[in-house]
């Protein structure tokens, strides 16, 4: 029954199944050819697909199970999550190198635009570049040069008018994001930067490394290093369309996003700090409606306090 041929076929079916989850055009062509080569291939592929799908409730259980008997949880150790380290010396050198570039404030053509939590603004620069500024954010622009901007705090989405001769460059601390014809979203937290590219591409630079990101790529940069990832393009910059989309995101991130977008201060129970959430949160409606909705979605108690919400089990 489990002959050599069947094992080979099965291994091939698994390989296709894995490859197709992020497959490009060539993969699908190859897959179609493989299916046509032998009618049993499709049966094998379907069996693998079924069996993998049958793992959904298992994975769900593993994710939510609090029983210590299940040891599925292997949190990413911060030290292992590093793609490369960026030594303090190099970072300092980068600061010096970009120092003069960043410090154009002395020319006095800079101006800052800030939003209060819950307030969103759209800025259109004279060259057609559009910047949507989320709540609780500050961006610094230059009157004399529409091709530079600095995100001081918060989050913004950029729809850039592309000019290859003079690419639009966003500075975040000592890191730079250089447009290559693009729509991208940038969020700056205390010491962490997140870049998500919805369309086209950007170049990320921090004085030590250069990375190219294209549509669907994400990048997290913090002092401990850089981690690249992927995100569905349709989910990027959801806040600009009044919805927040998460796939296994820490609850801290979710509450920070709500605070920024709606101006509601949120206190998170200490035992919830490592809890994660997947799903979509619509941001519309009044605060009470949103409060109820968030409670249901997170499966947690959301209580109104004097200055916002308190979330607990």
């Amino acid at each position, binding site marked *: 029954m489990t002959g050599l041929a069947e094992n080979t076929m099965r291994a091939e079916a698994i390989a296709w199944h894995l490859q197709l989850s*992020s497959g490009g055009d060539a993969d699908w062509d190859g897959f179609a050819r493989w299916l046509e080569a032998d009618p049993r291939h499709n049966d094998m592929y379907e069996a693998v697909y079924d*069996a993998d799908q049958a793992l959904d409730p*298992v994975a769900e259980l593993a994710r939510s199970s609090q029983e210590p008997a299940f040891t599925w949880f292997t949190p*990413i150790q911060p030290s292992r999550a590093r793609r490369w380290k960026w030594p303090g010396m190099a970072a300092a050198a980068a600061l010096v190198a970009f120092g003069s570039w960043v410090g154009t404030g002395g020319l006095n053509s800079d101006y800052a635009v800030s939003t209060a939590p819950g307030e969103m603004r759209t800025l259109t620069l004279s060259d057609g570049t559009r910047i949507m500024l989320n709540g609780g954010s500050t961006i610094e622009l230059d009157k004399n040069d529409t091709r530079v901007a600095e995100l001081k705090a918060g989050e913004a989405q950029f729809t850039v008018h592309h000019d290859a001769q003079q690419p639009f460059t966003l500075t975040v601390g000592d890191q730079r994001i250089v447009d290559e014809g693009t729509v991208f979203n940038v969020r700056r937290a205390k010491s962490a930067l997140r870049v998500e590219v919805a369309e086209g591409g950007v170049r990320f630079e921090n004085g030590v490394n250069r990375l190219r990101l294209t549509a669907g790529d994400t990048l997290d940069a913090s002092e401990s290093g850089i981690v690249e990832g992927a995100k569905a393009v349709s989910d990027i910059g959801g806040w600009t369309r009044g919805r927040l989309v998460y796939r296994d995101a820490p609850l801290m991130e979710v509450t920070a996003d709500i605070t920024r977008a709606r101006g509601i201060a949120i206190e998170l129970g200490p035992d919830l700090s490592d809890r994660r959430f997947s799903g979509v949160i619509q941001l519309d409606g009044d605060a009470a409606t949103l409060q109820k909705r968030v409670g249901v979605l997170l499966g947690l108690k959301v209580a109104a306090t004097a200055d916002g919400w308190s979330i607990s089990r």
Partner: protein
Amino acid sequence: MTSDGQEVPADAGLRQLCLSMRIELRRFLLARRIGEADAEDLLQDLYLRVQASVTGPVRAPRAYLYQMLNNMAHTRRRTELRQQSRDAHWLDAPAGAAGPDTEMADLAPDPETSLLARDHLARVEARLEELPERTAHVFRQYRVEGVSQKAIANELGISLSAVEKHLQRAYSAVLEIRSRLDPGATGRTGGTDDRAR
């Protein structure tokens, strides 16, 4: 204002692509062992779905259409199998049990389902323990935490093909559990109703 306009051409472009790829997609469905009439049906369905569900620009439109169609073909086949087994159980099933809402009921977690999931998890867990630690880690990251293969490669500082090898090995081991649990899972009978006893 300009960026709002970008999504429309991307969307219309996808519909256009759907039409121009019709022959190739139909051939794909036949390779996926979907009958001729069903294939036409699915292609029509795909066109409507593209119209209804795509909201933003798509990175690799051709692969995107294939992906959608592939999932639809899989769902179609499962629904058919479920229908068949329902028909087979028709005589012993209580009245109304095979009504249109049975499918919804299938999706809701009931105590029996979670018991099965628990049992399945324990077996998977045991199997993973027999594998090298890194292989098990890669599998958990991918299948439980939903981390992309690319991100796992970055996390561990290994190549994408190395991640694939770990996953291939883990999947071979873990999916086997399923076939042992439910002998019908390999081949065409599929395991649509573990809970049918």
